[in-house]
């Protein structure tokens, strides 16, 4: 088929636009990565000479270590609690009809609408009212609220993709309800549960706005520690942390994708 010059131009233009958008998406990460390897003690771009020293400094910095440690505790608890609660609600929403189902759905997904600082502020006021110290419990509770919609969505989609006839077939073959759950339902939901947990963990570990309200010096998570650091210093150790963060997250997601088929969970795909 003869191609018109105008078609050829359109194709070229399309290619350029797509490349530009992709470049734009990756630009911040690229800039930060390059800045992290700058040997000079200022955040500048592009670097003039290269070094690992900021990685060493960042890892050795005590506030970052504490923040990382706190972050792991908060993230571990928050995403696990959110997973259990979210899975239970997802199951209820998918499998049962009840009054106020719509209302429940709206409430469960509402943290997507409420800004993070509002949630943080709310928990701060609540904690003060109840006379609770700004300990882990408040942070964990706050993070559970923030990540719950994501876990709920992930498990809900996995449940929707689960053919109920698989469970009926198992029952007809002699499996009592608890064995249907352990041999069919849970194994098939596993990718959804793991990816839900992983999303929750990534979001929670990253969360800054609400955490700023509910953490104290002793309990500050990594993003809060980074914020406090950047208020005083402007050296590339922040960029180094960012690079480590990107590498770890990307590795986790890749592993999850390889072992669990994350792509399958994220798309609504019907098993035959």
């Amino acid at each position, binding site marked *: 088929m003869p191609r018109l010059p105008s078609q050829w131009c359109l194709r070229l233009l399309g290619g350029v636009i797509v490349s530009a958008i992709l470049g734009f998406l990756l630009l911040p990460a690229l800039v930060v990565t390059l800045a992290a390897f700058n040997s000079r003690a200022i955040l500048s771009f592009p670097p003039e000479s290269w070094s690992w020293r900021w990685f060493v400094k960042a890892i050795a910095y005590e506030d970052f270590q504490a923040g990382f440690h706190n972050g792991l505790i908060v993230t571990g608890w928050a995403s696990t609690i959110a997973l259990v609660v979210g899975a239970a609600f997802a199951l209820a929403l998918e499998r049962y009809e009840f009054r106020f189902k719509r209302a429940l759905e709206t409430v469960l997904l509402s943290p997507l609408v409420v800004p993070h600082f509002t949630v943080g502020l709310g928990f701060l006021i609540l904690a003060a009212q109840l006379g609770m110290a700004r300990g882990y419990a408040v942070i964990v509770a706050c993070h559970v609220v923030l990540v719950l919609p994501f876990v709920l969505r992930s498990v809900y989609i996995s449940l929707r993709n689960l053919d109920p006839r698989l469970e009926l077939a198992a029952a*007809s073959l002699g499996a009592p309800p608890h064995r249907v759950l352990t041999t069919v339902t849970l194994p098939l939901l596993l990718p959804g549960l793991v990816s839900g947990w992983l999303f929750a963990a990534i979001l929670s570990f990253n969360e800054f706005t609400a955490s700023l309200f509910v953490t104290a010096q002793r309990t500050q998570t990594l993003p809060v520690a980074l914020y406090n650091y950047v208020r005083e210093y402007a050296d590339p150790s922040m960029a180094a942390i960012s690079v480590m963060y990107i590498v770890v997250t990307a590795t986790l997601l890749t592993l999850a994708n390889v072992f669990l088929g994350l792509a399958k969970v994220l798309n609504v795909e019907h098993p035959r």
Partner: protein
Amino acid sequence: MSIPAEGRLSAPAAPAATRANGGADIAVELDGVTKRFGKTTALDDVSLLVRRGELMTLLGPSGCGKTTLLNLVGGFLMPDSGEIAIDGQRITDVPAYRREIGIMFQNYALFPHMNVAANVGYGLRMRRVAKGEIARRVADALALIKLAGLEDRKPRQLSGGQQQRVALARALVIRPKVLLLDEPFSALDRNLRASMQVELKEIQRKLGVTTIFVTHDQSEALSLSDRIAVVAEGRIRQLGTPDEIYREPIDRFVASFVGDVNVLRARLERIDGAVATVALGAARVLVPSRTLQGAAASSMVDLFVRPEELRPADHDAPVAARGIVAAQIYQGGHVDLYVDAPEALSGRVLLRVPRHEGMSLWPAGTRISIALAADKAIAFRPA
């Protein structure tokens, strides 16, 4: 549409008969089963007896209640009223996992995270059968369905036909009291479907397993079943052998749902006891009078005639109708002639004639005289 009384009598009359011989040859008994979903009644006081070893088909349009019936027998739904018994044991309240019933779903519902051997052996593991025994019975089952050697494949690595065989083996390996099949062939292409049907029938007969088969495909029902229950609007309209259902449909619904049929305008001449004479053009045909209760002599009736019971008229045969061939459709073994015959039928009359005759003698546009090839048919009062 009115439901003639006979349509329901055929089923409920039977329980007394079984009790007389102890019910030993009855595998499944439904007695006055009703199931509602909200305000809609899916099944309305249905009674049905399935004999041991028979292949009983529930045939009906979608939404008629046949799948609900299957789910009730399988234990996936509980009836609002009525009783269900298997092998003489009342199982109305028994959960699915203690019913000893094998089921094959339309999409086969193979466990995607298990390989073929694990799928087939699932029911045995749930029964805590010894490992060696499981391996032996799984191997036997796979041999039966001709899939030996594919034990380690995952379901997604199998073709549609293979998946179906695995689903069948999985259901049969537990030696179920009843095998339930839910539209099992609808996902297969035409050629595979035909061979799977033959194979299923063969396996079913070899094992002698009582089978309830749900389909909306009337030709499938006619070719596979020992008996057919035609289901419509939550009730069993007619219960009988495929030939009875095809030759002696009890009402207009069954007549037009099962097989192709021409509904021709004819005149009732007279009723002589159980037989009535109906005139279609110059032709005369005998019909059962039970379906014409209350029709007056010389009133118009609807004569139901199968396409193969019509033929182009010879010189001496009485002409039932005249028309013009609108189209001839080559079907391989035969030819379908579509004829415009306005005085007999507002739509088109369908004639099914042998291939050689149809192609050469009756091209489109030809004037044609139609005769009746059968001296018996069935007629109903106009709807």
